[in-house]
């Protein structure tokens, strides 16, 4: 067999079950690639010193690693910060415990934006994480190490968190599949909080099928997260084949007008692939992403600043200047404006489902409206255009978090600089199975997800 690290998670898990590969062989293959790639990417902040004996389960023996904000009892979780650099967790997050139960290996902690509050992957405390397709470009954030590690085939999958795009942006910029789950679908117990009304946990992996396997392991009610839904958990992997009746809404003229031309062309080509594989396309007016993003910003800034109030009073100098500035902004938002944003949320969700989705299963748009920018353009020396560029980075992801609905990003091409382009599917609450089926249908017809950076 060629390098086992190049298999998908589903293939690797199947190979272990069939006895064609041992867990040790998989872990050895992952560690060999980490040794080669880590100096270029800075995707890991720590590697596990030893591997546990894998238990039985759907992911038995498969090496994973996770954003460094999922607590494991007795282990440090830095959350990408200086403040928590040596913070040892007293309990294990529900998501990690469920992956353990499924037999997965946890081989290390992945780099991330400081306190998950940045969309690019810059980190002045732990070093920037670099895009495997070209280290001068951003990985996207805040789950930067997860995007880079999965794209470079260092691990078969990774957990990220998504409050304004933090799973989908790294997936889009690094060319992997990333699922933002419905708010409440996955327990947030033992995961670093940023904004309780918006925080979600989801997988980044090589394929939609891999995301389905990881979601199947982590989804479901958890009494230790008071916001975790009681919704039944379907067999996501078994439902991947349900594609014949997919109805897809999109706004072609808006995509052509608002997105970079290369991004627009790849996105509309992805829609055409799905139509050719049996889906029905229906043109609809675009949602008001700017109004929704504004309300998301109001909620996120208010809640994040409240979450960090004690440290912002006692040790503001221990934050990077960028994160400190983002947190400062939240303290001046009037409580009435914050609560009005929350009051309007139900009406916005109902409008999206009734008007944009209407009878469709999902709404299709780019994951990132612009081509992946460089680290220099979006970093501390980015200059006068930097704030506007950062707003563009999150423009097509943040609105989804305000609505609380699920969204899947999958790669659908490469731009003329060789950086990935992605398409995003947004669905109704708890429609993860439909989104994954659409992603799987697309990946059966294309090979963008099989491209590997060298």
């Amino acid at each position, binding site marked *: 067999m060629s390098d086992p690290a190049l298999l998908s998670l589903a293939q690797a898990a199947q190979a272990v079950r069939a006895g064609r590969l041992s867990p040790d062989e998989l872990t050895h293959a992952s560690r060999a690639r980490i040794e080669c790639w880590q100096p270029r990417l800075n995707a890991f902040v720590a590697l596990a010193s030893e591997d546990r004996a894998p238990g039985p389960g759907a992911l038995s023996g498969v090496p994973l690693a996770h954003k460094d904000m999922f607590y494991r009892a007795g282990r440090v979780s830095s959350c990408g910060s200086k403040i928590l650099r040596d913070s040892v967790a007293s309990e294990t997050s529900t998501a990690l415990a469920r992956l353990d139960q499924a037999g997965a290996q946890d081989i290390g902690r992945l780099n991330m934006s400081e306190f998950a509050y940045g969309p690019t992957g810059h980190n002045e405390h732990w070093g920037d994480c670099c895009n495997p397709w070209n280290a001068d470009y951003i990985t996207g954030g805040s789950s930067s190490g997860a995007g880079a590690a999965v794209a470079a085939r260092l691990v078969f999958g990774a957990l990220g968190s998504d409050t304004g795009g933090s799973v989908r942006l790294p997936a889009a910029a690094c060319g992997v599949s990333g699922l933002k789950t419905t708010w409440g679908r996955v327990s947030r117990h033992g995961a670093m909080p940023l904004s309780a009304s918006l925080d979600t946990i989801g997988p980044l992996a090589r394929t939609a099928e891999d995301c389905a396997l990881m979601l199947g392991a982590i989804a479901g009610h958890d009494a230790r997260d008071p916001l975790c839904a009681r919704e039944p958990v379907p067999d996501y992997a078994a439902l991947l084949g349900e594609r014949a009746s997919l109805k897809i809404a999109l706004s072609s003229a808006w995509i052509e007008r608002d997105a970079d031309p290369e991004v627009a062309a790849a996105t509309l080509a992805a829609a055409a692939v799905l139509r050719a594989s049996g889906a029905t396309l229906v043109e609809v007016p675009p949602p008001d992403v700017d109004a929704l993003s504004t309300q998301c910003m109001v909620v996120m800034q208010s809640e994040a600043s409240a979450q960090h109030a004690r440290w912002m009073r006692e040790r503001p100098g221990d934050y990077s200047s960028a994160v400190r500035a983002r947190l400062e902004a939240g303290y*001046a938002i009037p409580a009435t404006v914050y609560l009005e944003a929350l009051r309007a949320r139900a009406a916005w969700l109902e409008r999206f489902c009734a008007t944009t989705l209407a009878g469709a299963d999902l709404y299709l748009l780019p994951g990132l409206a612009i081509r992946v920018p460089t680290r220099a353009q979006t970093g501390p020396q980015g200059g006068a255009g930097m704030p506007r560029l950062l707003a563009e980075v999150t423009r097509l992801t943040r609105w989804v978090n305000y609505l609380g609905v699920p969204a899947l990003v999958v790669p659908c091409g490469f731009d003329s600089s060789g950086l990935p382009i992605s398409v995003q599917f947004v669905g109704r609450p708890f429609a993860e199975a439909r989104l994954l089926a659409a992603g799987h249908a697309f990946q059966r017809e294309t090979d963008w997800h099989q491209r590997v950076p060298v």
Partner: protein
Amino acid sequence: MTTARQWSGEAIEAALAAQGIALAPGRGERLARGLQALLDASASDRLRDALPFDAEPPGFLLAIQRCKAR
């Protein structure tokens, strides 16, 4: 309308100081511009202004149930 007031750098500094948050020098003015833009954008949300009197934040949980995939 909530944002009739135009925020100034001094007002921002005072609002944060009242919460024990010390601003880096020169930040107040920049924060005021950003905050004003955010509040103006929020205030222009016509759906928000059309909400019925009894709309409450927890209504979102019920909306998720009404809107979920069948």
